[in-house]
């Protein structure tokens, strides 16, 4: 009886919290919109122009997602499946573009092109948006497919290699096995690209998201903006559902024993070509923007590094603390929702997180303000708690997804074997599933940390007055500050994140020495 009560608590208390804290604000906003808006105006925005714009935005993001997934998968494949010198260095360095905000990336690239060619007309186009997004988001695909690749049981590949060529084995065995990871990264990148406003706005490309933004910030037409957001939401939802359908019949591989090490290949020939390709990618996606930032920060009439440091430092400390707590929360939440979904067929928590993930940041911000801004709730709205709520709403789904993939890798029999022995489900979770998921939980933590540290869209809407946060400060100071100061701040921002990332990797290495089985 006791056990049942505690099982109920474990299952329903978090769900209730999740619903009340994250999902209800959005649902209420939606309800207000539906009931508060004149029904003739409600769907007036759906006309040919809007549909055409959605189609166009989807098409753009589709190309971005395709390109980024291809580049990312190629990198993931080469870096996680082959042994060659500096392999680990590339793995880390190629993650860094993810730390640069797409807007900064766009500005730096445009300046760079101007210096090199004296003409920037080419970037002020759809092609510019596609290029910037593809280079900013490909590391995500690399991370996701890379970790999937490194979990494939060597037996599957070796068995394939006995009968067919490497190329055929790749196409027929590895590729289908990592299909879930491929579609996951494709859809995630598609949604990221679809919801980014900064790059298309900067390049003067009209997308559905810039349209929503215009409604919000030029016309202050809230019902219209929310209406359009709902439409965007439906489109994203449709995409996720399609992915889900597609995945449900995908051959999920379960590794019979996790102790087996994934297969790695040696590269003998054409090493130089490989290094060449990686360096090219590094130059385009990282070195060009970073060196432009460096040139700009040194090119001012005075040096601004110390001033920039003084401005950023207090904000950075605060941001790091918040991102750490945020990432811990998100990882825990992701673990719980993924576990509920994969092992208890309880999909609701995951679905709620999906909803909060695909809502545009501004809408999320407004929903949170309307819901939490009451004098009695000041301990939430007036403090950093509101930011933690915003972070979990924005990134909980990604965490749930990554963790979910790793739960799928653990054979069900490992849990059943313990369960017939009379071991409680809590203990099974703590002693068997949790240790086996540790590496992927760590990945989730690091990724959520980076995402929280850089989150701007919702943060700027809800951060408590007087609080200083690194992304907000970099952004607000950047307006009208000398270019050199702006670039210095961006570089410091990037540097701080990189150092933390390195630190995490070192800690990770130390921690996982204890878990050498994987």
């Amino acid at each position: 009886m006791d056990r049942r009560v505690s099982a109920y608590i474990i299952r329903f208390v978090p769900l209730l919290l999740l619903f009340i804290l994250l999902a209800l604000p959005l649902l209420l906003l939606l309800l207000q919109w539906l009931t508060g808006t004149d029904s003739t105006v409600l769907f007036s925005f759906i006309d040919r122009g809007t549909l055409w714009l959605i189609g166009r935005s989807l098409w753009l993001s589709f190309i971005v997602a395709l390109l980024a997934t291809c580049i990312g998968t190629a990198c993931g494949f080469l870096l996680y499946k082959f042994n060659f010198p500096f392999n680990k260095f590339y793995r880390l360095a190629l993650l860094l573009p993810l730390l640069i905000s797409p807007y900064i990336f766009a500005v730096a690239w445009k300046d760079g092109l101007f210096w090199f060619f004296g003409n920037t007309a080419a970037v002020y186009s759809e092609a510019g948006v596609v290029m910037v997004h593809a280079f900013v988001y490909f590391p995500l695909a690399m991370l996701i497919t890379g970790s999937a690749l490194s979990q494939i049981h060597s037996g599957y590949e070796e068995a394939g290699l006995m009968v067919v060529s490497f190329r055929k084995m790749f196409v027929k065995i590895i590729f289908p096995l990592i299909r879930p990871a491929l579609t996951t990264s494709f859809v995630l990148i598609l949604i990221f690209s679809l919801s980014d406003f900064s790059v298309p706005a900067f390049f003067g490309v009209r997308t559905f998201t810039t349209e929503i933004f215009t409604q919000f910030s030029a016309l202050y037409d809230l019902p219209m903006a929310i209406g359009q957001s709902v439409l965007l939401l439906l489109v994203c939802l449709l995409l996720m559902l399609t992915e889900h359908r597609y995945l449900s019949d995908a051959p999920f591989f379960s590794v019979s024993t996790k102790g087996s090490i994934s297969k790695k290949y040696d590269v003998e020939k054409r090493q130089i070509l490989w290094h060449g390709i990686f360096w090219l990618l590094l130059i385009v996606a990282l070195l060009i923007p970073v060196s432009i930032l460096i040139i700009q920060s040194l090119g001012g009439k005075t040096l601004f590094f110390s001033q920039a440091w003084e401005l950023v430092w207090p904000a950075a400390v605060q941001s790091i603390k918040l991102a750490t707590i945020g990432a811990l929360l998100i990882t825990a939440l992701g673990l719980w929702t993924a576990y509920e979904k994969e092992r208890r067929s309880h999909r609701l928590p995951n679905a709620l997180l999906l909803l909060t993930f695909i809502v545009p940041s501004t809408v999320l911000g407004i929903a949170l303000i309307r819901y939490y801004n009451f004098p009695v709730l000041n301990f939430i709205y007036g403090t950093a708690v509101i930011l933690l709520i915003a972070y979990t709403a924005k990134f909980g789904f990604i965490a749930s997804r990554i963790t979910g993939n790793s739960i799928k890798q653990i054979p069900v029999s490992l849990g059943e074997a313990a369960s017939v022995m009379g071991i409680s489900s809590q203990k099974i979770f703590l002693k068997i599933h949790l240790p086996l998921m540790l590496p992927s939980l760590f990945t989730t933590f690091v990724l959520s940390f980076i995402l929280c540290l850089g989150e701007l869209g919702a943060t700027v809407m809800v951060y408590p007055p007087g609080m200083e946060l690194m992304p907000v400060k970099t952004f607000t100071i950047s307006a009208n500050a000398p270019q050199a100061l702006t670039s210095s701040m961006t570089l410091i921002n990037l540097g701080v994140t990189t150092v933390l990332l390195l630190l995490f990797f070192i800690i990770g290495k130390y921690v996982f020495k204890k878990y050498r089985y994987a």
Partner: protein
Amino acid sequence: MKYIFVSLILVFPACNPSAEEVTVYTSVDQIFSEPVLKDFERETGIKVKAVYDTEETKSTGVMNRLIAEKDNPQCDVFWSGDPIRNGVLQSKGITEPYQSEQTKQIPEYFKEPDNQWIGFSARARVLIYNKNLIAPDSLPESIFDFTRPRFKGKFAVANPLFGTTTFHMAAIFTALGDEKAKAWMNALKENGVVIAASNGDVKKRVMNGELAFGLTDTDDAFEAKKESDEVDYIFLDQQERGIGTLIMPNAVSLIKNAPHDENGKKLINYLLSRETEAKLAVSCAQMPLIKGTEIPGVPSLDNIKAMKIDYKQTSEKLEGIQPWLKAWIEE
């Protein structure tokens, strides 16, 4: 678990609602507004809790926040870079009139009739140009010169849906009448005007030498001159019969049902002082509105021919032309 609690305590500063503090939301660039607010904090001992936003993000953050917080305002004072946003808030019933000795010093012209917003330190629209790309004597003297063929594809204006550019266009529409203004804007388009993301972007592109000249605000132009020797700026339409250039004051509003009403008023009085205007004049070349504040190197309102506009009427015009402006960009 223990560590989580410890870090939670570290992250959340103790909040004490009764403390002497004031909350201000501002869309004025942080680099200029923060020093003023810090000075206020130092001089009065009232802690300033600020939410910054920028014109680059079109003030989406603070504006939508103020609107969403209407029923339980967190903010006491809204300090905007131009009066339009205050006008939007006023129409939504978020601002409150405020009178004091200090507000009386500001000329009526730069105040909302009921003092729903009060103007101070003004910026003007200017033409910023790159000396390497265009000689000062061949520059346009009026915005109407922009349509000349010799300037084709060489100049920029910021997206007219946002920021001070919207206001500028609304003023031009008011001054010329819709038909003439539309014809002029269409002619701009035909002459290859580059639509930049923001005034800051106009400034940057001219500084980089991507474009010969563009329309921006005095503060951007002033900043650009500090950064680079290759740029300079001029006021347009200063001829005898010219329409003059647009002057845009900062605008401050008291928020209705502000939680720290009294401190909010103190901050407003502080902002409307000679000292603040002088500081803003030095830091970003904003022109003082209180008579008799002279700062060397900063243009004075007395020497500039200003466009004759009614701010309220212009704000109303703005709402009317926005759909047309939106279509103009998207064409």
